């Protein structure tokens, strides 16, 4: 026995809080009693309240213990659940009183526990859904397990129940290897020990002093009896999955636990809860098989069987091929490489569990405890389904996949073979991972292509992927009521109305109607969507539903290009592709006669495309104004010298210059009216050359705290001119033509409104002076000479 050791830095027993939690005898006893009381009360409560209203029993067993606590602790601190498990806690005392016989050989088989877990629990769960998770089913299951456990504890020595019969015993032992902790001893101190308190205090009769050399901890349940018996026991932090990076005595049962649990939980869930919800569920092989045997109502049960069969098939096939590639016998390959599959299940399901915890399990848990202990608590879910940050939990699944591949690489290092063989072996051994990724992608594909059944979905555990969550990318815009009729210019729009293009959705309810799309095909050309709207004043958007004029689009090379149109909520939306960076000109021309006047209305949109993906270079000729010869009336913006990139935006204070044209000739003395969406307007007249000049006004005066430098304001410039010309259109005479053309523009606050050169330079100069002064003083006042550099000669 060792009374005192100088503990390492990474020893958890050396940490103030964690050391207390893991080592203090009274604290551990208190925790165990509390957990045991909770366990038995939940079982008792389940028997007393077998009705569905009882949410407490389910919450304790199917939210708190499993999956939340188990999944959180196994890949982090290890199998600490075993350390506080009521069966193990009471079993220790029962064994002490009991017969202490040796377990018969046929029972010393870890596959009993695995079989109970996979078939007894998961199999039953899929075949008879809802039975085992009901309050009565849960209570019955755990009461039965407790009875079996206590009988086995009473009969046999060394806590054999935990090792062989407990359904989660082998599973915990297996996944514990992923944790970043390890129990072992200070071997230097142990060398002189003759009394072996650690071994004699261990209820499992393990030898903690051998853990360091063995590189694993056998069936240790982290009960910490040894740590309290001898000071030389340490519980240390390691790198995650440290054990798996090195050689240790492998146990095939553990590898089977990894494969079968992966099959029974994430894979079977993908089949039974994922694909089963798609509209083509009946086409899935398990439902067809069930129908073939005339047991259609057990389709989900068959899905479970298929999940097991397929997973085992791919795992064994992959490892068998790897064993051939590596020229090793199958058993060695299986037990060496199979350990790499450990993170696959646990991280994917952990992500899902955490997500469900925030979305609903937390509220259920609080309500359950409130119900059972008779206190009032109203718990709201901590997050809504679809909150952006929940997506990060979905990421854990892919970390699991990557971790598996890294572990596979590390485990391959333990096998000696040639490099080429190892590369081949690596690919073959990844077959199960590829299968796992494949079904996830397949489910996403099925959901996207065939859709999900309308029936609602409720479940509470297991692994689901990103694709299964409801999509919230879809627009929530509701059609604004305009009587449902499709409006067109000729019949509905008054002659005095302004008609113009806008690139913000007139029917969008939210203010932030971004037309930019993320993602998608990176090779596709960016597309701009615009709407044609009209109104008595600028800003009162009613959209045009039907086009009855000509629509012309000129691309950056001034060539005519087609425009796509689509009807959305009775609004016509026009979209055009922009394969190049530069100016695109869109025109809408329409005419109608009212009271002997021909109203010729034009809407113009000059759109500057600046997409980062495109490699066009800004050249002078691209900024030259474009004159569309087809147009009878046009308003051309003459660009200033500041506009030297595809990403130029207007800002308040800028000088705008326009040239008005009628039949491609300068139009003098035409009326120009400028509108801003805040209501401000002003009128100008064009000069002899047809040119008009004005500055964009500043019309944004928020409080400083609310200032937004990306505040976008809309401006509309309308050109109107009346020409006394006579003619006939569609058989109707007119003696006057009233031309109007609109040109929309957006602008932002000027940089000078929020950026200060002066302050920047003052700060810079002061810092420069201060830093120079400090450096100078520091060096001048240094009386000590430079320290000589010494190299340690070891």
């Amino acid at each position, binding site marked *: 026995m060792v009374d005192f050791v100088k503990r390492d830095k990474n020893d958890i027993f050396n940490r103030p809080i964690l050391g207390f939690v893991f080592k203090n005898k009274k604290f551990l006893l208190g925790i165990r009693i509390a957990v045991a009381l909770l366990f038995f009360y939940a079982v008792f409560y389940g028997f007393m309240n077998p009705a569905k209203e009882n949410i407490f029993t389910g919450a304790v067993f199917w939210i708190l213990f499993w999956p939340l606590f188990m999944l959180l602790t196994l890949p982090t601190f290890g199998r600490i659940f075993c350390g506080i498990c009521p069966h193990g806690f009471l079993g220790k005392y029962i064994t002490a009183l009991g017969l202490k016989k040796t377990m018969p050989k046929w029972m010393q088989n870890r596959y009993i526990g695995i079989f109970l877990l996979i078939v007894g629990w998961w199999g039953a769960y899929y075949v008879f859904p809802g039975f085992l998770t009901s309050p009565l089913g849960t209570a019955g299951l755990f009461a039965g397990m407790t009875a079996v456990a206590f009988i086995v504890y009473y009969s046999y020595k060394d806590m054999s129940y935990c090792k062989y019969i407990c359904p989660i015993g082998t599973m915990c032992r297996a996944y514990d290897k992923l944790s970043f902790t390890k129990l072992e001893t200070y071997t230097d101190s142990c060398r002189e020990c003759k009394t072996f308190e650690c071994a004699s205090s261990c209820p499992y009769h393990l030898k903690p002093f051998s853990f360091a050399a063995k590189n694993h901890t056998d069936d240790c349940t982290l009960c910490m009896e040894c740590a309290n018996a001898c000071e030389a026991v340490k519980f240390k932090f390691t790198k995650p999955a440290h054990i798996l990076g090195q050689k240790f005595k492998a146990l095939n049962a553990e590898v089977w636990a990894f494969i079968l649990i992966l099959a029974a939980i994430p894979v079977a869930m993908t089949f039974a809860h994922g694909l089963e919800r798609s509209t083509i569920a009946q086409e899935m092989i398990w439902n067809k098989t069930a129908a073939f045997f005339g047991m259609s109502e057990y389709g989900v049960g068959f899905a479970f069987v298929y999940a097991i069969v397929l997973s085992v098939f791919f795992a064994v096939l992959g490892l068998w091929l790897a064993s051939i590639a590596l020229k090793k016998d199958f058993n060695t390959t299986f037990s060496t490489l199979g350990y790499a599959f450990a993170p696959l299940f646990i991280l994917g399901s952990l992500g899902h569990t955490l997500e469900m915890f925030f979305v609903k399990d937390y509220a259920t848990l609080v309500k359950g405890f409130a119900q059972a202990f008779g206190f009032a608590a109203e718990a709201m879910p901590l997050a809504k389904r679809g909150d*952006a940050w929940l997506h990060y939990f979905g*990421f854990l699944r892919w970390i699991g996949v990557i971790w598996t591949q890294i572990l596979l690489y590390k485990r391959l290092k333990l096998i000696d073979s040639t490099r080429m063989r190892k590369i081949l072996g690596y690919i073959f051994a990844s077959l199960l991972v590829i299968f796992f990724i494949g079904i996830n992608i397949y489910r996403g594909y099925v959901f996207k292509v065939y859709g999900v059944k309308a029936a609602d979905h409720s479940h509470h555990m297991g692994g689901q992927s990103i694709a299964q969550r409801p999509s919230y990318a879809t627009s929530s815009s509701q059609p604004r009521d305009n009587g449902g009729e499709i409006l067109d210019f000729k019949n509905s729009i008054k002659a005095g109305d302004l008609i113009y293009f806008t690139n913000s959705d007139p029917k969008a309810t939210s203010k932030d109607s971004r037309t930019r799309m*993320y*993602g998608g095909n990176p090779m596709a050309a960016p597309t701009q969507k615009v709407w044609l709207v009209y109104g008595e004043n600028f800003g009162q958007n009613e959209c045009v539903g039907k086009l009855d004029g000509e629509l012309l689009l000129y691309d950056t090379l001034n060539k005519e290009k087609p425009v796509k149109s689509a009807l959305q909520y009775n609004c016509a939306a026009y979209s055009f592709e922009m394969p190049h960076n530069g100016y695109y000109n869109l025109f809408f021309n329409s005419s109608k006669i009212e009271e002997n006047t021909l109203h010729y209305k034009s809407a113009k949109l000059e759109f500057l495309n600046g997409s980062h993906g495109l490699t066009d270079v800004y050249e002078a000729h691209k900024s030259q104004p474009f004159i569309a010869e087809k147009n009878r009336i046009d308003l051309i913006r003459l660009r200033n010298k500041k506009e030297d990139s595809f990403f130029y935006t207007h800002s308040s204070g800028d000088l705008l210059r326009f040239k008005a044209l009628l039949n491609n000739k300068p139009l003098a003395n035409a009326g120009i009216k400028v509108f801003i969406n805040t209501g401000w307007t002003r009128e100008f007249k064009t000069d002899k050359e047809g040119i008009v000049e004005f500055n964009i006004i500043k019309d944004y005066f928020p409080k400083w*705290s609310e200032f937004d430098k*990306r505040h976008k304001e809309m401006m509309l410039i309308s050109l109107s001119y009346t020409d006394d010309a006579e003619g006939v259109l569609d058989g109707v005479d007119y003696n006057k033509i009233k031309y109007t053309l609109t040109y929309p523009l957006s602008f932002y606050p000027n940089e000078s409104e929020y950026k200060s*050169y002066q302050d*920047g330079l003052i700060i810079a100069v002061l810092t420069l002076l201060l830093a120079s002064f400090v*450096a100078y003083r520091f060096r001048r006042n240094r009386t000590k000479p430079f320290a000589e550099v010494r190299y340690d000669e070891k």
Partner: protein
Amino acid sequence: MMKNKIKNIINNMPLNKVRFWIQLVMFILFAYGGYVFIDFGSSIPIFACPYNRETGATCYFMPLQHQLAMPANVLFGAAAISVFIGLLTFIAWFVVLNKAWCGYACPFGTLQDWITALRKKLGIRYSTYSQPQFDKLSKIKYIFLAIVIMIPLLMGIGVLGGEWSGAFCQICPARIISPMFVGDFSQWKIDFSSVAAMILTTIGVLFAAVFFVGSFIKKRFFCFFCPMSALHYTMSDLSLLKLRKDGDKCTKCGDCYKVCDMQIKDIADDVTSTNILRDDCMFCMKCVAACPEDDALHVDILNMRVFSSTKEGFAKRMGMSHLEKNNDQ
């Protein structure tokens, strides 16, 4: 024969001169490439700052911050592909030169070397950190790297608003100084549009001012805090170019440490590890040139020695023959 000749020429080259010319060419390429329509894309592992209108490439942190700031559901959807492609392109560039991007290509690094040259001309001595200072300050670059990655992610989940866009760029001195290469001094402004912007741009101006003083008295002052250097280090194992040391041949004379602009002590002290590249290293290879032992330090591409320390090369670079002649007289 031929091979040995070439090897000799390389091993005996005057590294400082070669490096100066490479740096000059790279500086022109990356700082002024835009004038002749050079564009190496947006995943370049150096501070080729796009705030400089005429930059010949774009620093990878710019697209990275923009990509990571996408809404989380978009980021983990189809857009993940573009993020991944960006990262792969970055790695593809990086594996070619390893950290030599810092020592040979980074315009911001080159600028610091030139400031150091100016200080030398003026005859002012330089400063160094003490070892404890070095150990503490050396971690700052990882904090900056965390800013580069975490702030956009927090924007993506809606914790931080749009005013945090490109947060690291706002505090990066390269944003303020790089445009000055083409006569654009406009980045010295303080942005008052929001509290976050105000704080970030103020810090940026402070850093830029400190940069000039710091790099004047300390060699490669900023590189020590550079998050790009930290990102490089996380991937340096992937690189084809390796800086290796043969500890058996090392006599611990400390010449390599003395020439090291980054004050990396391991280069002289560590005789056990073969891969001697440390997170502060900028792969300038001055240590290799300064090493008087045959093959004690060498630069490998795919395990092929391309530049290694030799007695002969050392003697040549030190001008020993010249010294001996003088002694004879």
